[in-house]
């Protein structure tokens, strides 16, 4: 079959079936928009993880004079010997610990005053109540448990805190968004599959005379099927292009524009996804659209267009 003839057949098919084709385009657009949103939310999580996990450490808080209710602090404030012992212990955890540094009571109090500068509690907290600490940067953030168990309850240690727990709440929130988006995408893809199936059935019916003649004169299955296939692939690709356009607008005006301005004053630079992330997932969306079209058409053609 010549390309020109094929394109003519495809064009006729699209023209005769405009409303169904538009439906396929829109359903594909919505399903891929949700799929893309889910993937982008996931990339946002990854971006933030990279950003936060660099900053966040395990903090080993040392005993303050008042913390005698904790067993390992029974002797009151941390002694110089205990502090030196902890320091050498940390040095021995070479593979696990990327680096660590000591935050003295003065530094900690300074930071505390800065953080709570607008709070009335500031004046009621004495400097001695702020613990000194070792700030530990882990080589592998997921190995937190190993480090924690090594120092939890050691003499002079009041508590060990993994500050990832704080940001993990944010991540689970983003993950939930991501999952919801992918869930919606799956539902919409199911709609798309059914709609494409119905479209092909209707198209097959409206073209049954042509198909019948093609069969009788000995056209191959490929020749008979390929116009249907090309029409469906074109429709889903248009849908995919529209979905990518929507995602681009969302990132460009929603995230890079609005959200990043909003956050700029608050936390300084934090990692947000940008259009570059969209281009990374673009092949997935386009490939998904083509796969959806080809598999669904193939199944529908086997059922509705006998050769």
């Amino acid at each position, binding site marked *: 079959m010549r390309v020109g*003839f094929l394109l003519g057949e495809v064009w006729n098919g699209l023209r005769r079936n405009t409303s169904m084709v538009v439906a396929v385009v829109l359903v594909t657009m919505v399903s891929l928009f949700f799929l893309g949103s889910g993937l982008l939310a996931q990339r946002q999580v990854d971006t933030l993880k990279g950003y936060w996990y660099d900053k966040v450490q395990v903090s080993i808080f040392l005993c303050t004079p008042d913390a005698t209710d904790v067993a390992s602090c029974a002797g009151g404030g941390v002694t110089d010997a205990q502090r030196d012992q902890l320091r050498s212990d940390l040095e021995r955890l070479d593979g696990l610990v990327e680096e660590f540094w000591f935050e003295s009571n003065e530094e900690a109090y300074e930071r505390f005053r800065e953080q709570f500068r607008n709070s009335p509690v500031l004046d009621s907290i004495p400097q001695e109540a702020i613990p000194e600490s070792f700030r530990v940067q882990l080589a592998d953030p997921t190995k937190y448990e190993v480090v924690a168990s090594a120092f939890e309850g050691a003499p002079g240690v009041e508590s060990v805190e993994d500050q990832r727990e704080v940001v993990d709440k944010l991540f689970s929130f983003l993950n939930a968004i991501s999952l919801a988006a992918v869930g919606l995408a799956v539902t919409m893809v199911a709609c798309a599959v059914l709609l494409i199936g119905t479209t092909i059935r209707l198209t097959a019916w409206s073209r049954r005379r042509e198909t019948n003649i093609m069969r*009788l004169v*000995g056209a191959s299955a490929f020749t008979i099927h390929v116009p249907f296939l090309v029409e469906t692939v074109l429709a889903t690709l248009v849908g995919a292009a529209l979905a990518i356009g929507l995602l681009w607008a969302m990132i460009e005006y929603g995230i890079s524009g609005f959200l990043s301005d909003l956050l700029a004053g608050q936390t300084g630079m934090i990692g947000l996804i940008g259009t570059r992330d969209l281009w990374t997932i673009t092949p997935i969306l386009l490939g998904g659209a083509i796969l959806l079209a080809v598999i669904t058409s193939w199944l529908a053609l086997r059922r509705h267009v006998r050769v």
Partner: protein
Amino acid sequence: MITFENVTMRYAKGDAPALSDVDVEIGRGDFVFVVGASGSGKSTMMRLIILEQHATQGRVLVAGQDLSRLPHRKVPALRRQVGTVFQDFRLLSGKTVHQNIAYVLQVLGAGRHTIRQLVPETLELVGLEDKGKRLPHELSGGEQQRVAIARAMVNKPPILLADEPTGNLDPDTSQEIVAILDRINRTGTTVVMATHDTTIVNRFRKRVVQLREGVIVRDQDEGEYDAVEEGLA
């Protein structure tokens, strides 16, 4: 060219067979009338030849190929060897005569040059050389059937099947159609025509294969068809 060897065809289990132990050989270049009343099995024979249906028992051979063993992907190649014409013409109403015939060549992958050459040539064969730009509904029944014959013949198949091609036409037009089939036959094409038109059969004096309830009751060169026998007249 076409051989039926002990062919039995049953559409559903328990039904009376549409064809029962049919044994027929049609040679290259033959012209055969397959006659019989409605339901005698004529159309079933046609359907078996283009593999719309597989025989329940026995073998059907077309152009040297055993159809019961023909793989699915080779069915289109078989159908390219067999042109088909039906009682109801089956033209595409939105396409002109020329486009209807060109359509066959297009779906079979022919180029523009071939189409420009073959379509007028085939229209001439059926005597419609000046009607290429007409739409099917602007033509008489006989002309429409001639377009259908042109469409069946445009890719020059060695076999032409015509299933009741004159069923919708008046006697004079019917004769014209069969005369065209006869002319096509003289160029070497094997023609098999199913009909129950006694006048046509008796006038053209060709080989007659007569079916009654799926059984061959007559196979005669330059044969006759007596409809009174069938209770048709």
